[in-house]
Structure formats: structure tokens, C-alpha cells
């Protein structure tokens, strides 16, 4: 079920009503309701894939209990078994064909008469998200930071909770499980905040991302004949498309969850206002970057190790992050670009610069840093968006060799009418601690209502007059 569908609105209204009325005094019933709703939500895509999810849940549930109950080698074996079984599903569905294609290509290169058949399978939706969420649980239990969840229904809900099931945020057990156990009481202020966040999420997805998608698609579909300015604007359009799309999804997820009294972690914090690449990664897809930080980067020694090991760690993290997004070299190069720029930044300014208070940094430095960072991010997005590496290079080549300007620019310039106001709206949101538009301002109810109505009308406008793009991150 897509968030940007009428089915979802009816589904949410129904679950919300039953949750707070019929089951208002039945905490156990509420857990069951959320779990059943999550199953229905998931089965709207490919129903039979729920069995895969169920098996993963079952293995990690028992592994969690066994890890906590054993010590030493047995504990480690349970952990490894759980990680392997969970990652095996990910490998088979997401990486097997990539592995086969590359093995075949290498075999052909060395004239070895060897060929493996690729599988004709569809990737289960949101697989990378719930896999990482399951992995974080067993690792936390192994480290002794998290008690194993004994209740199978609650653990299943932790993995399957529908607001964040298919595209995150990748939650931690410590943040979510205790909320499922708490006796939920309706909190009007939180629910109202949730509704505003849903509205803001839909605005970002439908008004911003889908509008930008039309520009980005036009540029990437016809890069051979467009002028350099149009191609640059097309790449910028994709940068805002993916931001509006994914952060919009996250806002809808967070807002939906707040309606049930459950708070999820913030996933975005104005990433295009970042003044450096390290800063960007503290603001973009926070739940994934902190996942890699906690479960890969820190165990590898993080920045405490000296010399080349630090750079090795950075490259591992970014290459893994790229590979997490998809089994395609384009994603790996995307990660590589970020890794290179991250390392250059570190080599010049070191770690101390990262800790500098932005308030004390001169404005001009922030501006220049921000522009360079945005430029690097947009460059990397070209690889992320392209179908393959050749297309990405061809797009970049077209930017440098096609005519600088042409009549096609007039088709792309209107993009600025969308991006400049949106960037200003984002800037207004800079002091918000929850990402909800204008939440840090004290506005009269009438003004707030008027703003909400304008946003709702614009959502209706774009929902019906534009082609809809599926949420990009659903494919991961």
C-alpha cells in the first residue's frame, strides 16, 4: 500500500479509529491490531512475501532469546547464525543477480566458459530496511545493551510496524520496544503534531518531489540533446526529488506513528543546508548513517584509529552504504564519491572542524562550504539516478560538451519557482526539533490553519495533475 494513495488514507483512518475507540482499554489488543494492520499493509504489495518476513522474524526472535541465555562461543554462534540467515535473504533477493552478472562478466573476460543463470525474482519491498532493523536487534542483544523480547507478537511488530516497514526510519529496539509495551494513552497534542507532519510529508512528496521528478525525468531521458544549463537544473531537480520523496516518506511515517502515540527517530535534518560532507551525513538518512556508525564504523575503530585505517573505515562505510541502496555499480560509485570527499575534508581540516559550532563559523565560510557540499552531493546523485555507469558518465559528458545554453533552458527555469520558495520554507524550519513545518513558531491558529489549507490545496493540485512517482526508497 502506498502512502500517497486513497487506500492508505482509508486504511489509516480505520486503524486509528479502532485503535483509540474499540480497543481503548485493551493494550494487548492494540499491539495485535497494529501487527495485523502491518501484515495487511505489507501484503498489499506481494502477499506471499510475508512468509519470508515471518521466517526472518522467527529466526531472529529465537536467536535473540538464545543469545541472551548463552555465553561465550554458543552466544557467538547464535549471533552469527542469526546474521547469516537474515543476510542470506537479503543476498538472494537483492544481490544474487548482481553477483551472477559480475561473475559471468569476469569469466568472459578471462575466456573461461562459465555462466550462471540469473534469477527472475522481484525484490520484496523494504527488504533492506527491516533486515537492518532485525540485525540491530540481535547485535544489541549480543552486546547486552538490549534485553531479548520474549513476546513474539511485540517482536514481530518491532520488525513489521507499518509506518516504517517499507522505507524506515531504521529503528532501534531500545527506542521502539518499550513504546509498544507502554500502556498507550491518547495524546491530543502529539496526534495533532502527527497530522501536521503527515501534511508536511505529503507536501514534500507530492508537491515538491513529483514536480521535480518531471524535470529530472525530462533531463535524464534526453540528456544527449539538452543544453548544459538544463542538464544541471535536471540534476538539481533530482536532488530535490529524492530529498522530497524520501524525507516526505519519513515525515508521513513519523506523523502516522505519532497518531498511535509512538515516536520514531528523526531521519532528516535539512541536509541541503549542510556545510560539509560530514555535516551532510549527520543530516541525511540519519537512521542509516547512525546504523553504520554504531554497527560497522565504531567496531572498526572509527576515527580513533590512526592513518590509513581511518580512511579504510570511511571507504568501507560509504561503499557499504552505496551497496545497501542497490545491487548496481552506480550506487557503489555514489558511495565512493562521498567517501573521497569525506576523506579530503578530513585530510584538510581534521576531525576538530567537524565539531565546530556552526553559530561561531563566519557566514561566508558556511555559504561557500554549503555550496561546495551541495555541488558534490548533486554530482553524486547523477550516478544514483542513472540506470548504469555509462549513462552517468554520458550525462556528465553532455554537461561539459553540449552547448551551454539553448531554448530548452526556458522549459527548465520554472523549476526555480518551486525550489526557491521550498528552500526558503526549509530555512524557516531550521530551528524545528521535530522537522514539522513551522513547529518552532508561535502562530495564531487562524494563520496556521490558512497555511495548512494552502498546503492541502497544493497537494490536491499536484496529486491529480502530475504523474505520480513511486517512493524511490521503496525499491531498497
Amino acid at each position, binding site marked *: 500500500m502506498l502512502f500517497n494513495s486513497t487506500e492508505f488514507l482509508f486504511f489509516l483512518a480505520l486503524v486509528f479509529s479502532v485503535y483509540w475507540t474499540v480497543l481503548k482499554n485493551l493494550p494487548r489488543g492494540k499491539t495485535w491490531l497494529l501487527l495485523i494492520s502491518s501484515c495487511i499493509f505489507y501484503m498489499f504489495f506481494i502477499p506471499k512475501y510475508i512468509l519470508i518476513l515471518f521466517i526472518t522474524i522467527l529466526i531472529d526472535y529465537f536467536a535473540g532469546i538464545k543469545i541472551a541465555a548463552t555465553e561465550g562461543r554458543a552466544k557467538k554462534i547464535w549471533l552469527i547464525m542469526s546474521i547469516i540467515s537474515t543476510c542470506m535473504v537479503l543476498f538472494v533477493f537483492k544481490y544474487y543477480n548482481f553477483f551472477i552478472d559480475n561473475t559471468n562478466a569476469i569469466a568472459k573476460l578471462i575466456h573461461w566458459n562459465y555462466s550462471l543463470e540469473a534469477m527472475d525474482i522481484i525484490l520484496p519491498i523494504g527488504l533492506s530496511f527491516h533486515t537492518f532493523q532485525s540485525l540491530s536487534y540481535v547485535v544489541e542483544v549480543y552486546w547486552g545493551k538490549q534485553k531479548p523480547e520474549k513476546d513474539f507478537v511485540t517482536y514481530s511488530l518491532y520488525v513489521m510496524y507499518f509506518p516504517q516497514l517499507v522505507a524506515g526510519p531504521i529503528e532501534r529496539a531500545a527506542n521502539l520496544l518499550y513504546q509498544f509495551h507502554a500502556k498507550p*494513552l491518547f495524546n491530543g497534542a502529539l496526534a495533532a503534531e502527527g497530522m501536521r507532519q503527515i501534511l508536511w510529508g505529503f507536501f514534500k512528496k507530492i508537491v515538491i518531489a513529483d514536480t521535480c521528478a518531471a524535470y529530472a525525468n525530462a533531463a535524464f531521458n534526453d540528456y544527449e540533446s539538452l543544453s548544459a544549463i538544463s542538464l544541471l537544473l535536471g540534476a538539481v531537480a533530482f536532488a530535490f526529488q529524492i530529498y522530497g520523496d524520501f524525507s516526505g516518506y519519513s515525515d508521513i511515517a513519523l506523523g502516522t506513528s505519532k497518531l498511535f502515540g509512538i515516536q520514531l527517530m528523526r531521519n532528516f535534518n535539512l541536509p541541503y543546508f549542510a556545510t560539509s560532507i560530514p555535516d551532510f551525513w549527520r543530516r541525511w538518512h540519519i537512521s542509516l548513517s547512525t546504523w553504520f556508525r554504531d554497527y560497522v564504523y565504531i567496531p572498526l575503530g572509527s576515527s580513533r584509529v590512526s592513518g590509513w585505517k581511518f580512511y579504510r573505515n570511511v571507504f568501507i562505510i560509504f561503499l557499504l552504504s552505496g551497496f545497501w541502496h542497490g545491487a548496481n555499480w552506480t550506487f557503489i560509485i555514489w558511495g565512493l564519491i562521498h567517501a573521497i570527499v569525506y576523506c579530503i575534508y578530513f585530510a584538510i581540516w581534521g576531525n576538530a572542524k567537524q565539531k565546530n559550532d556552526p553559530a561561531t563559523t563566519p557566514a561566508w565560510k558556511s555559504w561557500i562550504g554549503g555550496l561546495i557540499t551541495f555541488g558534490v552531493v548533486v554530482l553524486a546523485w547523477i550516478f544514483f539516478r542513472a540506470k548504469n555507469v555509462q549513462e552517468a558518465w554520458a550525462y556528465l559528458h553532455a554537461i561539459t560538451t553540449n552547448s551551454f545554453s539553448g531554448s530548452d533552458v526556458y522549459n527548465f527555469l520554472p523549476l526555480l519557482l518551486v525550489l526557491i520558495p521550498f528552500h526558503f520554507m526549509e530555512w524557516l524550519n531550521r530551528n524545528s526539533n521535530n522537522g514539522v513545518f513551522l513547529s518552532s513558531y508561535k502562530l495564531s491558529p487562524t494563520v496556521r490553519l490558512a497555511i495548512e489549507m494552502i498546503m492541502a490545496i497544493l497537494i490536491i*493540485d499536484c496529486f491529480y495533475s502530475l504523474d505520480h512517482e513511486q517512493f524511490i526508497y521503496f525499491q531498497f
Partner: protein
Amino acid sequence: MNNSSTSNSEFKRFIAKMAVRVAILGALCTLVFYVPLSREYYFSILKYSDYSKISWIENKLNETESLDSTVVFVGSSICMNGVNDSLLNALDTSSTQYLNLGMTHTCFAIIDALLEDMLERRELRPKKVLLCFKGDAMARYIHTMYPVQATPGHIQSSALAFNTQYVPSFLKRVSWNVHALTRYGKYIPSDEDKEFVSDYGFKPQPFNTPEKVEKSYKNLRAGSEANFNAIQGENEGRMLPLKSQVLLAYNDVTQNVLFQRSMFAKSARRLDELNIPYDIIVYPNLVSARMQSKDIMANYIKRTFTSIDYSKHNVITFNDTAFANAKYYVDMNHLNPDGAQLLTTSIYQELHP
């Protein structure tokens, strides 16, 4: 006061607040829905789209002072691609003219909106109207561009005809009205190749090889035959299996078919009230021609639209076995120019026995 009762009252307050917001949004949308924008604006949206023929029809009717001696064909793409009005004009040496106003997609709501515009707003009185029926199935989906082409009044009245897509239709109209302001920030490709440019309403389809047509037929045959059998079953008073009924209801097909029926009946009534002669043409396609049951759809029409006086209005079907030959088609439903010539000649003979 305990936590539970506080929570209860908060919940009620929240629901009340949301209800107020929904009501305000509804009122705002209604205001926007009725904003009187020019017809040029709405039809300019369609000019370079797949629905370019609708803009062409608007311009054609703008240029037309009288249809008194014109036979008008209205219907879907099977009409647009099947009736060569230029050929009809050549065949008929009398003063009678022919005009093909067929447009892409089968939907009786948009046809009725077109008739309303032509007959009531413009007060044009065609010599005869030929309504279109697909050979193997009932219209079952509302036209995407119905909210652009129809007037607010027509959309509102569709609710009374049980248009289950009324809310999306209403909101689409709202959307296109807002789009008049917001279009300056959107990427709007102007694909001039899509513009329908012709003196006549006939749109010839490109030729396709019979092998490709047969392949398309093979792929889609089962579904189309199922539709055809369902129509036959309905004629004979048989019920569909429960699973099919649930599936059709879930996909809003059952409800939409009822709405489409009421729209077709409304068009027939509209023509009767103005004493405009009309007939119904059942257009052949590969499935209906190959199943050799030309009367099935005609019987369905007679059984479904009982208010039509069939002694005055003919249901025209075609017996020619040539329509079962893939060489006359571009796909399972649409005729190529040779097929259109065959059909046009057959229609001419039906109209001039």
C-alpha cells in the same frame, strides 16, 4: 479525573478539530471547483496530450454554426479510428455531411458531457447522432479527462447518477483549477506531435502486421472472451461466479458499469427530448467477430436500456466475416485504415439501405 478519561476527552477534541479542518477544506475545494475559468484554458491542457482530439472537437464546434445537415458520430477510439468521415462525405453525394467526434477511451459520461455541450450550451441540432458501443464489453472506467471536459454542473449531477468516482472527479476539477495558477512552476512538455490536426475527425491508425495483431489477440483473448461471456450471461439472466463479482466490485467495475449505463441512458433521453434522431452502432472487434455472436451486444443494449424506443432507433451490427480477419486491425480492438474503409462503407450501406 483519571488518565483514561483525560485521554477520552482529548480524543474527542482531536476528532472535532480534524472534522472542522475537513469541513473547511471541503468548503474551500467547493469554491475552487466553481471558479469560472475559460473553456480555452481547459482545452489547452489537452491540446498536446494523448487526448488532443478533445481539443480538436472543441475548436471544431466553435467553428460550426449549424449541424442541421450533419450526421455526428460520438464514441470512443474505436469510433475515432473506425469511421472515416472524409470517405463518408465522398460517398454521399447529397447535402448530408458526416463528422466523427470519437475520442480516446470508452466512457459514456464524457460522451454525455459532449452532447450536453453540443445540444444545450451551443444549441446545435445534428441531423442524426450515432452513438457508439464497443462490440465485446460495457464501458467500465471513467475517462481521465472527464473532469476537464465536463462542466461543474455535469460533474455534480454525475453524483446523483451514482458516479462512484465522484470525489476524485470533483477533486480533479479542483486540481485543474488550481493548476491554472501553479502550472508556471511545473514541467509541462509540449509534444506538438501529439496535436490532432485534420479537417476531419477520423484518425487513421498505423498499419500493423497480422502476426502482431494475432499475438496481441492471443494475449488478451481470454480476458475479452470472459467479458463477452459475462455480457451473454447477463442477457440470459446468469450470475457471475462469486469470486468474479467480488473482484469486479473491489476494482469498482461493477459500480462504474452501473454509472456508465445511467450516463448512456441519459444521453439517449437527452436526444429523445430534443427529437434528434439517433442510432446505436455496435463496433466490431476481433473477439466479437470471431465469436460470431453479433446479436449478443445488441441484445444486451435492448435488455439494459429499456426506455429507448427501438422501433425508432436502430442498433446497428455488422455481419461481415471480414471483421474476423486480423489484417484489418492494428490491435484487438482498433481497425487500421483498410479496416476503417470496410467499416465506413458498411455503415454507409446501413444508413442508406
